């Protein structure tokens, strides 16, 4: 069993407690695990918050470039503090809840949405050891929590007591029915190829031969097509253009978050970027080799090893690989948003049910046949 993030944090805590003359290891096992997990999750939460702030800025800058204008460039160097300023502004805004809204569900919905978006981070491996929980049902866990987000959105749409919000929520319900199946099928393709539901195992399996052991190359053509199916269906699940029907501003004003403002709106915003990150990271992990990748950890020539990364450097290079791939895939999502129009509700159901599902079945069956051939 390899070390994970919780073990690393506990080791650090033990060393730190030794410095002040206390014995951390004397605490019960349960307390140690829980505190390690809490610290790890708090760290991830900070990462997600910084990430969202960065990507909201990046989105606006990218949009500016695509639309031949500047984008925010006044607050901080290159305007990088713009979304921080916006966030502070939103935080200090008056908390408005419509009189006719359901008070409990209206408050609960953004939390549920963010929880659904954030929970998959627990199993996303940044590197061999940089993962909070190395659970064997990692893929399954990530998918089930991603589906929780939908309930939050429908709740927001219903509780707002606004017809446009209701439309937004109902649209996501219809959309979810159609994109969940292709996501499941494309992930199953990888599970069949790898024989594991553990995300760390799936990545370890792609080690070697520079980039040609990555699942998209190893499982060619099945995994290659499965990646596109996963990414397209993932776009739909993160409610991004061209599948941003639940919040289609030209049709539904602002969709399910029409009535939200201030901190609750921030939660929705945060969860949108978090979902984008989760989908991109899952694509990188399942198909694009995870922490293995273009940045090498061993410099070797003619059978002679000149430099090999130690555990610390190796983990950092691995994390850089995962984050680099994820950021590239997120950039593609931004690029899509500022290029494509939006599809209609019947078209998204058509694309998912009649195009992605049959192709997903083909890739799954193909990969299964591949696995049978020795």
């Amino acid at each position: 069993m390899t070390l994970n993030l919780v073990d690393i944090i506990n080791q650090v805590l033990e060393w730190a407690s030794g410095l002040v003359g206390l014995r951390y290891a004397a605490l019960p096992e349960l307390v140690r695990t829980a505190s390690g997990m809490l610290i790890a999750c708090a760290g991830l939460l900070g990462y997600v918050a910084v990430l969202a702030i960065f990507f909201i800025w990046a989105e606006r800058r990218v949009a500016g470039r695509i639309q031949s204008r500047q984008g925010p460039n006044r607050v901080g160097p290159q305007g990088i503090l713009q979304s921080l300023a916006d966030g502070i502004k939103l935080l200090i805004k008056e908390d408005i809840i419509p009189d006719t809204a359901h008070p409990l569900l209206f408050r609960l919905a953004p939390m549920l949405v963010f929880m659904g978006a954030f929970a998959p981070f627990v199993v996303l491996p940044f590197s061999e050891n940089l993962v909070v929980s190395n659970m064997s049902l990692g893929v399954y866990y990530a998918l089930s929590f991603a589906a929780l987000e939908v309930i939050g959105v429908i709740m927001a749409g219903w509780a707002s007591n606004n017809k446009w919000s209701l439309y937004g929520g109902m649209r996501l319900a219809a959309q979810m029915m159609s994109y969940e199946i292709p996501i499941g099928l494309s992930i199953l393709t990888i599970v069949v190829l790898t024989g594991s539901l553990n995300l760390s195992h799936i990545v370890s399996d792609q080690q070697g031969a520079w980039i040609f052991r990555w699942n998209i190359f190893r499982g060619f053509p099945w995994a290659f097509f499965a990646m596109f199916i996963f990414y397209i269906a993932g776009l739909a699940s993160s409610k991004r253009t061209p599948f941003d029907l639940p919040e289609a501003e030209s049709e539904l004003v602002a969709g399910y978050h029409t009535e939200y403002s201030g901190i609750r709106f921030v939660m929705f915003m945060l969860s949108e970027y978090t979902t984008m990150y989760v989908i991109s990271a899952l694509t990188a992990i399942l198909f694009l080799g995870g922490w293995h990748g273009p940045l090498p950890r061993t410099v070797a020539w003619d059978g002679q090893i000149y430099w090999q990364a130690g555990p610390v450097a190796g983990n950092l290079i691995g994390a850089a690989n995962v984050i680099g791939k994820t950021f590239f895939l997120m950039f593609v999502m931004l690029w899509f948003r500022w290029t494509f129009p939006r599809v209609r509700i019947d078209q998204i159901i058509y694309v998912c049910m009649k195009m992605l599902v049959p192709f997903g079945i083909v890739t799954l069956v193909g990969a299964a046949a591949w696995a049978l051939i020795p």
Partner: protein
Amino acid sequence: MPEALKTDEILVNMGPQHPSTHGVLRVLLKTDGEWVREIYPYIGYLHRCKEKIGENVTYVQFTPYTDRLDYLAAMNNNVGWVIAVERLAGIEVPPRATWLRVLAAELNRIASHLLSFGTFGMETGAFTPFFYGFREREGILSVFEKMCGARLTYHYARIGGVMRDLTAEIAAETRTFLDDMEHRWVEYNALLSDNEIFVRRSANVGIISPDRAIAYGLTGPSLRGSGIAHDIRRAEPYACYDQLDFRVCIGRGLRGTIGDSWDRYWVRMLEILESVKICRQVLDGLPEGPYRAKVPRDLKVPANEIYFRSEAPRGELAFYLISDGTNKPWRCRIRGPSFCNLSIVSEIIRNCLVADVVVIIGSIDVVMGEVDR
């Protein structure tokens, strides 16, 4: 069906404050889930008594008021009004002024169609075309600013001529813009017109059959989108249009059925190119001479009446004037093309999806300033 599962139609108010109702149009939708069964448009939120004002100010004074009819095509409105008054009063206009008016009107047509391109893209969910359209429109606004000093309510045509002569600098800037526009037009098609998602959103949506288009009195690109080659600039040439070479663009159902939203959009795109062509011809063949005739400051018009129609970007803009020998018209009636074009929406938006409603309203391209007057 058990009582708990009973479904119901809901009424939704779209507008007057809605991102895609082009100003202050209010549409009441009767929806069954995502399906829109019926719509009822409500207008009048931008009513400013234009016609009554026209009867209470002099002919000369009313000219700037016409800027605010279709505020995206102020030049075309000016031209329509001044030609109507000139014909009513029997004023002879120098040829140079006529040609300059055509230049301004056609540049304004391009600007208006660019805005329509942008907003139509926005309605299908694409943001970038909007900025591209505005970027090119900026070139026209810069020309207009030099022509007449304004950037929105341009006011260049005057009774008897135009405000100022065209300088060499403005002509050169216009030529640069026209060259740039043709180049950008190709880019627009790559970005939006030929985009598969866009085509699927707009083709076969909101089909107006040719006979329905005629029955509802549709004009402009909305009529030509249905395949009817009717253009006042050709049918009843005014100004110098009879001396210019241009094509009347019609919808051919390239991506779906004739008269669908994509056809109307495409007619506008083609008209941009035709207007570029007209502007070039005007710049090349501009006659020398005075740019304004002598018109008395207090223009008194003998008792007469006139119905003059001109081709504005959105269709047939007509002025019906009755004069009684004073300096104010006795009756000033304005036919706004958007008003007639809008009348068809409750017939074509029926049993379609909510997303189609904004696309169809966008494809008809109404400007509420002209609907309500």
